[in-house]
């Protein structure tokens, strides 16, 4: 966000000329030109890994042709990039089929069912890759972990290591790591204990970077239908960092939260934003109608009754004891617009500058 892009290189992507910065990767040029390739191991926040090989593209520089991983290779002057040649397309399909052979059936993918189609199955569909094209040699096991936040269905893990990278390099919590080698590898917490006994802060970043259904938000998984989910872009209601979130709703009902990767917070959230920003809204204990206290007990009232009573009492205090006998306390939890109206109400409705907000506490 702070970096300035200087267009210095001219690159051609699928016949389209595009200017890009000297430090930019081939993937940046491809996306700037309006194309895309699958990037299963890539998260812009942790940088290129180059392990999944899905973003391999044909490039030509000075008449020399080669294939490079778009996420790791740098762009160069007059580079020609072709993203979807027949051989590359066939190659991607094969890789996808090999990856799929290591996972459980796409029909039961927790992310595809409850949230939205995961990156792996989106790519599989695009390239026509079949789940059962190859015999299944390795399928990982689900982790036994009864924490209330993160569901760990490693039978959908493709060893892209985005979760361990985001945990170590972005969140810097180092709660999970890769255990074992080659086909024997798996994602493990400290001593294979539960996440609750690990340095995990339950920020949920692993869930949100995972390109498959291996890691999901346990509060939502199995309780929603992906096709029905709507997302509303808004801001986390907790601290002053103001991380961007999407609220998930289904049939007008609140179902959960996802980070907003387009916000300045770049998808970061903490445990509160990820796992506590919507249940209180649905709490049975919400106040649902106005209340007036009579003889020491509350009774239900209509809005007109309640607002009329406030108007009557406040105007009588104002007129008899003077406007400065009244005070208004506004809220650092509410929207700025409500705070604006509150101070305007105090100043010209009542006629006092006795307006303050809770910023001191």
């Amino acid at each position: 966000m702070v970096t300035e892009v200087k267009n210095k290189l001219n690159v051609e992507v699928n016949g389209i000329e595009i200017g890009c910065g000297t430090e930019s990767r081939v993937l940046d040029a491809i996306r700037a030109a309006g194309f895309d390739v699958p990037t299963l191991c890539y998260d812009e926040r942790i940088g290129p890994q180059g392990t999944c090989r899905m973003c391999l593209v044909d490039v030509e520089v000075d008449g020399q042709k080669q294939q490079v991983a778009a996420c790791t290779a740098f762009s160069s002057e007059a580079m020609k990039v072709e993203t979807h040649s027949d051989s590359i397309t066939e190659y991607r399909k094969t890789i996808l089929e090999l990856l799929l052979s290591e996972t459980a059936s796409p029909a039961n993918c927790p992310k595809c069912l409850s949230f939205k189609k995961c990156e792996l199955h989106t790519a599989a569909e695009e390239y026509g890759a079949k789940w059962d094209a190859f015999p299944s040699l390795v399928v990982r096991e689900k982790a036994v972990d009864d924490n209330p936040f993160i569901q760990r269905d490693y039978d959908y893990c493709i060893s892209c290591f985005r979760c361990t990278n985001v945990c170590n390099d972005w969140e810097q919590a180092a709660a999970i790591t890769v255990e074992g080698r080659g086909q024997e590898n798996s994602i493990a917490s400290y001593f294979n204990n539960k996440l609750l006994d690990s340095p995990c802060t339950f920020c949920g970043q692993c869930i949100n970077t995972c390109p498959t259904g291996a890691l999901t938000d346990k509060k939502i998984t199995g309780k929603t239908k992906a096709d029905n989910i709507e997302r509303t872009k808004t801001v986390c209601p907790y601290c002053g960092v103001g991380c961007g979130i999407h609220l998930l709703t289904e049939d007008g009902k609140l179902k959960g939260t996802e980070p907003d990767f387009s916000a300045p917070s770049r998808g970061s959230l903490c445990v509160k934003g990820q796992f506590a920003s919507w249940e209180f809204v649905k709490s049975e204990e919400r106040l649902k109608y106005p209340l007036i206290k009579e003889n020491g007990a509350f009774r239900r009232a209509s809005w007109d009754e309640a607002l009329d009573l406030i108007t009557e009492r406040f105007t009588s205090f104002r007129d008899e004891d003077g406007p400065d006998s009244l005070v208004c306390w506004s809220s650092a939890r509410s929207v700025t617009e409500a705070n604006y109206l509150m101070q305007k109400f105090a100043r010209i409705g009542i006629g006092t500058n006795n307006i303050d907000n809770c910023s001191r506490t």
Partner: protein
Amino acid sequence: MAVMVGKGAMTNSIEELAGTDLLLVAGSNTTEAHPVISLRMKRAVRNGAKLIVIDPRKTELTKWATRHLRIKIGTDIPLFNALAHVMIKEDLIDRDYVDNRTEGFDELAKHIELYTPDLAAEICGIPAEEIIATAREYAAANGKAAICYTLGITEHSCGSHNVQSVANLGMLGGNFGKPNAGVNPLRGQNNVQGASDSGALPTDLPGYQKIERPGVREKFEKAWNAELPKRRGITKITAMDQMLRGRVKGVYIMGENTVVSDPNTNHAQAALEATEFIVVQDIFMTDTAKLADVVLPAATFAESDGTFANSERRVQRVRPAIKPVGESRTDVNILLDLMARFNIDQNLQSASDAWDEMRQLSPLFGGISYERLDNEGGIQWPCPTEDHPGTQYLHKDEMDSGLPGYFAPVDHIPPAEQTDSEYPLVLTTGRRRSTYHTGTQTGRASGFELLVPSELAEINSYDAEQLELKDGQTVTVSSRRGSVEVPIKITDRSPHGTIFMSFAFPELTQTNRLTSDAYDFITETPEFKACAVRIDKIESSTTAT
């Protein structure tokens, strides 16, 4: 800070922290209170930046620190004055910057002559060599050093002087008006910045326009077509004193659990009980709402339209995902309805109308339209016109005030309440990551009981041994104002003589029954960070063994 350079807000942006050469973090348990900002700090450390943490407690951030100054609570001014002393004595200041952009340097230099590292070492409990090394490191960063602070600096009876001593250092190092630098208060609640931006302050109209400044009141009177009160208003803290004296007849409280969040619960409760008519507009039946005569059911953020302004002055859109539950209504709609009953002549129908009126009257946000927020995402003020990109960091070519930065010679003022033989321990309060404020929201999120199940008083192993306490044992913590029962956690995160508690579990532990009602005499921010307490064993639990 506003009196020295203009506005009290983060001078720089959150993302910039990752790119700084030196971070000086004072009185901020960032990993717990602002977890996502702490990620940028950790990134800076991984990029090779120095991280100096000034905190009486060991925190997760102190593990990342290249230097931890374990300061005695409430002695920030001597430390910052001594840092300035070393920088001046050793000629490490940014001389050009001081000459061209500040005033009052000579007075400051004279004032802090007294604050030698040796004197500060004695008051603050930090070795003089550490103080000297810190000053040298800060100066060596050469205009690429960022100071961050939070309530550990402000929640003291000398809070505003603390801030000024911090800002002095920022100016000596030439750190105002540069990228990856500055002096940055990290704001606590989601919209503290916006609430203050909007003019919900006893002295300021929207956009920090002072009521008492010539022409300001007239401008708003014309726009609002009404007469405005001339005299500045009273803060919440003053209002509570006035309530106890019977001078406040009615109070309208929007979205605040005053009884639990304010210091000295008994005092806050008594103040409200002495008030004839109380209106509370909130989402839950809080302890404060229980005292009300009228309770209005408000909508939550998930049901509301509007904006929040974050800690880095960024205005961002809040959008409703669902309709308000039951008969609840948004704060904006409730207030519009009420204002109509007070015959306020205005043509406002929505949050968007209210925002447009506010920005037309405040150059600070003049160029921030909902349309731009929808298209471009959040925009940082100042943003006077629609073709202005917003401001990543303040004070670029001149101080935001349009004036030189004024150095503020300030002196050490110890916490209002000192320990004695009856109350020998210091209680300091703060936040934990998985709970928020008074717990009305995080307390309702499933699973959170596993993260921090209840309040715990953190106590140093030495103190626990002296008092013959066991880990997990429930004790009584008492101050001159009240007492609470709470289990203890023995941990060397707490320094000798100091215990730590949050205030997120009011059903069981009302921490603010203990806290002091001393407050800063300029901003009237309460001294949550220091009060004297004692710990007593509970008889039944000791006889059981």
